[in-house]
């Protein structure tokens, strides 16, 4: 006998499914509850729809230097940092600049780097770009398999991941992990220091 699909079990399941559960007030309650909530970043973000270019990255970095936002750690060569931390397989190294600016509202440039010799495309996804796989791409470096990108992030906690070749989600093995039981996926956590 099929232990799961005998007649009695089917009748029991059908009986449970037939229970009246419609509650029109509940739908209105839910919609009212979310209607009053502040608009979330994923609905109001003005993240660029095209990938950052190296030129834009360099411009951001230069602007940061001019304004004195970026400390010595943040101005290290991305390639040198990737090479120093190179390990077999893929490796991601977020650099967390410490800043000394009174302009707290300004975003802080943060560099993301990745080493993955098999990747042909690397997207950066996170709470800062709506987890979009098509909005933000790392740029290939001079050394084979190195990828990097600098993005301006607001101070605070950010959760992110890399998506390699549009398929493989990967965390940063050297960053803190964040696992939300509700959403079932591990991501990496980045703390950007307030200026």
């Amino acid at each position, binding site marked *: 006998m099929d232990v799961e699909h005998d007649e009695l079990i089917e009748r029991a399941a059908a009986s449970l499914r037939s229970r009246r559960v419609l509650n029109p007030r509940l739908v209105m309650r839910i919609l009212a509850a*979310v209607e009053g909530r502040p608009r979330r970043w*994923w609905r109001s973000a003005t993240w660029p729809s095209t990938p950052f270019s190296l030129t834009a990255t360099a411009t951001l970095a230069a602007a940061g230097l001019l304004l004195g936002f970026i400390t010595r750690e943040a101005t290290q060569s991305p390639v040198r940092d990737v090479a120093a931390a190179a390990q077999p397989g893929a490796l991601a190294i977020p650099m967390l600049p410490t800043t000394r600016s009174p302009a707290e509202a300004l975003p802080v440039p943060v560099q993301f780097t990745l080493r993955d010799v098999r990747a042909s495309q690397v997207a950066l996804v996170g709470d800062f770009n709506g987890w979009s796989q098509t909005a933000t791409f790392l740029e290939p470096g001079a050394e084979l398999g190195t990828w990097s990108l600098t993005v301006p992030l607001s101070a605070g906690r950010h959760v992110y991941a890399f998506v390699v070749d549009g398929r493989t989600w990967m965390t940063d093995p050297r960053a803190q992990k964040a696992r939300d039981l509700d959403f079932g996926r591990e991501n990496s956590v980045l703390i950007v220091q307030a200026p």
Partner: protein
Amino acid sequence: MPGLLWAIQPAEPAPVRPSTDIDPAVPLRARGGDEEAFAELVEFFHVRCLRYARYMLADEEDAEDAVQDTFVRVYDHLGQFRPDARFEPWLFRILANRCRTVRERRRRRESLVITGELPAVAADAPEASRDLMEEVEAELEALPTEQREAFLLRHVEDLSYEDMAVITGVRLSALRMRVKRACDTLRTRLQQEM
């Protein structure tokens, strides 16, 4: 979102056979900030969510709170929903966790109460007068929580074991065992009742 509220009529509810998932474009539209698409998600899934929560929590008010909390969390975290994933197991994972949280909170609260009245169900009609639905619900409620959860997801919500693994974070083999034990227990008890 008044545009969708018109559709909510206190009509005769039809039993829901959850054999189909929603159009994958709807959660993506909601993810992109489309309010009506979010309302469509609520409309489509809330009956199943409420039914699952009621069977898991055995309390109407707690169930409604859990479902509302689930959809608020969905609304707040739609950005984390992967476009290449299916919405249904993602939603039920959140709901299952909400139900566990409510049960745990209730267990802690009840453990503080030394004396109190018995719940109303204890004074229900005599066994002989209960119909099949009441029998099944009573036996379902008597199952261990993990078995009840697995049985509901598999047999009432018609989800695959793969989806159940996403929802519960439990291995397929363990889920199959839970469902089997739930079925064995229900079958034995229901046969005795009949």
